[in-house]
């Protein structure tokens, strides 16, 4: 027996709400009204499956369906391929043999934000499209940004997924031409290792690449790699080296170089802007200026994001290779120039 209040009245039944916001269908009796409090018994409750024979019928049908479809299910729901997408959001997609997404997982918070359970059951092409569109919408991905797709073949021996991805990317230039899509390949062992570290297989592979291309930066690494950090830290010759890496299946060298160049310009502008701001705010305090400028420069170095630190380090590394080690003096010269600029603008 239960106590409840009638909240809805239909032709053939009433909806009653009981303790803890539990709603139930009960049979209609005379004089039901909304807001009426009632005692109702289990026999008054209309179960959603209304009669016994229907229960049996459903059970039989289910059993048949289960046994018949068990085989098909295994085929459909076995994971043949894993594709991970990294922008900053990291998402891992599990595909069946028809490239239909049968499971997806956001591997970080941003990843959780761009996925949707409705994506399960859709073709990988549609899901990738939605993920990239969501990333753009939520401003994780800007024009010229990087999208990393990593593929792991679990059951197929061929590389059909790479061909499929190429098809997908080339098939939708409107979406993918504005960004840099890099496709790389990984093995099941890589996937397991990445799982152990709690990162996506894509980032795991990037860390490997970094060790190849830029060992010093890799050795100094304390945080988990990010896609932006990796790609924007690349020098032009790094990109050439990258292209020759075996795991890279697809990338557009020229676009990447342009994008990275643009990004560096943008960062430089930003640094200059900040210097200007600092300079003007110190107006009328000329005695302390030089000290403060040094301080400001230090601040900037701290403030510039990790990728730039890596960028600088790669620069130095490169410079070390050269005979006269001109890197340092160059840097000094640069900062002197900047100081001069500021003095001019101040005056």
């Amino acid at each position, binding site marked *: *027996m239960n*106590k409840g*209040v*009638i*909240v*809805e009245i239909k032709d053939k039944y009433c*909806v009653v*709400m009981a*303790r*803890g*916001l*539990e*709603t*139930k*269908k*009960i049979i209609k*009796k*005379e*004089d*039901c*009204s*909304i*807001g*009426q*409090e*009632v*005692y*109702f*018994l289990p*026999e*008054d409750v209309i179960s*959603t499956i209304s009669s016994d024979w229907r229960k049996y019928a459903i059970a039989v049908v289910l059993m048949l369906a289960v046994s018949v479809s068990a085989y098909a299910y295994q085929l459909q729901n076995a994971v043949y391929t894993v594709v991970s997408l990294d922008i900053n959001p990291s998402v891992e997609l599990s595909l069946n043999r028809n490239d239909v997404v049968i499971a997806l997982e*956001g591997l970080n*918070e941003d990843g*959780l*934000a761009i996925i949707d*359970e409705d994506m399960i059951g859709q073709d990988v092409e549609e899901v990738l499209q939605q993920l990239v569109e969501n990333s753009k919408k939520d401003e994780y991905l800007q024009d010229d940004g990087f999208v990393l797709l990593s593929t792991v073949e679990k059951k197929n021996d061929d590389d059909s997924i790479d061909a499929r991805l190429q098809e997908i990317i080339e098939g939708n230039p409107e979406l993918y031409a504005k960004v840099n899509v890099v496709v790389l390949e990984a093995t099941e062992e890589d996937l397991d290792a990445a799982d152990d570290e709690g990162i996506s297989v894509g980032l795991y592979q990037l860390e490997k690449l970094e060790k190849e291309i830029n060992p010093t930066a890799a050795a100094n690494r304390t945080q988990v790699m990010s896609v932006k950090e990796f790609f924007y830290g690349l020098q032009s010759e790094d990109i050439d080296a990258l292209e020759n890496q075996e795991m890279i299946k697809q990338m557009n060298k020229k676009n990447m170089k342009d994008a990275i160049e643009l990004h560096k310009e943008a960062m430089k502008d930003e640094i200059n802007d900040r210097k200007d701001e600092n300079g003007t705010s110190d107006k009328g305090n000329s005695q302390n200026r030089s000290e403060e400028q040094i301080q400001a420069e230090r601040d900037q170095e701290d403030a510039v994001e990790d990728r730039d630190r890596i960028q600088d380090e790669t620069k130095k590394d490169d410079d070390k290779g050269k005979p006269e080690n001109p890197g340092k003096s160059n840097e000094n010269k640069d900062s002197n120039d900047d100081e001069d600029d500021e003095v001019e603008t101040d005056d």
Partner: protein
Amino acid sequence: MNQTLTEALTAIKENQQDELRDELIKEYFPFIIKRVSLFTKRYVNPNDSDELSVALDAFNESISRYDMDKGKFIEYAKLVIESRLIDYIKKNKKAENYTEELKDNVMDRKDLEKEYILKNEILNLSEELSRYGLSFQKLMSTLPKHQSTKMKAVEVAKVISENDELLKAFRENRNLPRIKIMKEIDVSHKQLKRSRNYIIAVVIVLTGEYESIREYLEIN
């Protein structure tokens, strides 16, 4: 069961054990409700049902007057309840005009007011739920089945309703701000997704003007 029932009945009769009597009435309360409901063809109102009090008296009476040669106790109690209810209706018909006046004027005013307020709240709640794409019926099919899941959902709902930021996001998006919630409370994505409708409903009830519903639903 029958053995103990008979034993209990004899014990009550011989020793005047009121405690045992109360227990028996409590145990058979659903049975009494059922008799009344069958008789009136209506649901029994817990707050105000003359028929229920008549039936309770009748059941009490049948405990006192029952003995073994009257057949099964349950059958006997059925009979007594039914005949007392018939008596009540007959008597009531004679004094119909008088009682109706009485009802309208004094007795029921408070209850009617309560019912009116409750009705209004239910209609408002129904409307507010629909703004979140929900209805009482939809709620029914997506109700968490396990008690622990439900407790967790209520816990989450309480956290949302007490956190201004979460509440704001909830109302603006008409959906659960899942990621923000996960930062505030230890709950998985899956749990939030599964109990979504229920959590939304509880938050609405907790934060809106649903005084009577809140009191009634005992989720506070």
